[in-house]
């Protein structure tokens, strides 16, 4: 599972499903590559959202990760993006777990869980592309967030 992520949410979800269904030996044999792919697929999911909203996906990073910067970018002016903040952070965490210790006995399981986290991101963003209000009712505190819409987060490197 290498190469550039595909640009359709369904294709990305299918790739994640394939990763989840892979044998342990397959995952372990190329663990760092799979971990980097997970992150790239996460980036691709958020790029799809941003592009669909006429935004140019940032190339910046937050805490060293583009995924977190893309999430920040998506969240600006759209409080419902809060709903995938921790999902993105969990994805980064699972990527780090694998990359820091690819020989760990839990590596295959960690990769599968990371893929499930990425799948949740795909489902959430895919859902939002169909129903923009997804996450809006629960997570958003619209009047508060709208005040922040035009402020540039200082943490973006």
């Amino acid at each position, binding site marked *: 599972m290498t190469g550039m992520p595909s640009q359709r949410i369904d294709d990305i979800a299918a790739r994640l499903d394939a990763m989840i269904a892979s044998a342990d030996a397959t995952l372990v044999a190329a663990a760092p590559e799979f971990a980097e792919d997970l992150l790239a697929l996460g980036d691709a999911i958020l790029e799809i959202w941003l592009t669909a909203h006429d935004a140019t996906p940032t190339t910046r990073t937050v805490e060293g990760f583009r995924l977190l910067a893309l999430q920040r970018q998506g969240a600006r002016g759209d*409080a419902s993006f*809060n*709903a*995938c*903040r*921790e*999902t993105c*952070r*969990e994805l980064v*965490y*699972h990527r780090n777990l694998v990359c820091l210790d690819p020989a760990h006995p839990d590596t295959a*399981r960690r990769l*599968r*869980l*990371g893929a*499930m*986290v990425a*799948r*949740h991101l795909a*489902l*959430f963003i*895919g*859902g939002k592309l*169909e*129903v923009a*209000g*997804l*996450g*809006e*009712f*629960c*997570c*958003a*505190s*619209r*009047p*508060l*967030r709208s005040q922040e819409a035009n402020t540039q987060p200082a943490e973006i490197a």
Partner: protein
Amino acid sequence: MSGKYKNVAYYPGCALEGTGHAYNRSTKELGKALGLEITELKNWNCCGAMEVKNVDPKLQTYLSARNLSIAEKMGFDTVMAPCNGCYHNLKKAEYDLANDASSREVNSRLSSKAGHKTYEAGTVETIHALDWIKEAIGEEGLKARVKNSLKGLKVANYYGCMYTRPRHIFPEKDKGPGSESTAKPHFMDDLLAAAGAENVEYPLKTACCGGAHTLSDCDTSTKLVLNLLTTAEACGADVIATECPTCHTGLEMHQVRAEKVLGRKTTVKILYFTQLLGMALGLSARKVGVHENFSESSAFLRARGLG
């Protein structure tokens, strides 16, 4: 444990009188079993929930503030709300009133019109049921009271979204050791571990369940919930512990729907954390309302000597 919150006002909110009745029952029974006193707010109203908040956020602030004003009038400085939505809205109202002059103006105007004292920010503290048990009893206090350990029960703790978002309406969180984390909440994990449960590492503990879209956009919710359920199972969980009636009902309903519509069967059980703690304290499954859940977990609990 700080020993505070032993006597608090109780705001059940609408869901706990309907679909979340098991949560209402188990919260009250748990409090009783732990010797904690809760007094329901008199003549409480809707917190503004999801609908009012999005149509007219300032009206939602007023509706929540009215409940806080009732707590104050009843002589309480703390109100406990087990529902994530209510908890979130009361916290949001507190934030609005402290930081937004126009929210204060609307609250004052509507309070005068309704004929009650205008609530002022900082008078009543809103806490969640998790804060309540964690502070009033604590892990050590719970351990000492456990009669029927949850030992062997593997639990994925699912907090949902409104317990931690948006961060700035929860100023007491993220204050280092002992405080709750908005990025990786752990109060429910701590309490259930104290009752003997084995918490699994669950990476989707605050992920979206599609809550508000449960009826209007069923398929999205079903897919999101199915992923929550399958991930919990992949983590080795027997049970998903919940602390929000909206999440809980959504998980239960879409577990059934995922099997019917998508042909994907999952067997992980869904129980409120108050039900699990109650049973650990020796209360029966019936006493904590397991029979009121939409999903069936009685046989599973019996097989493990619970309830």
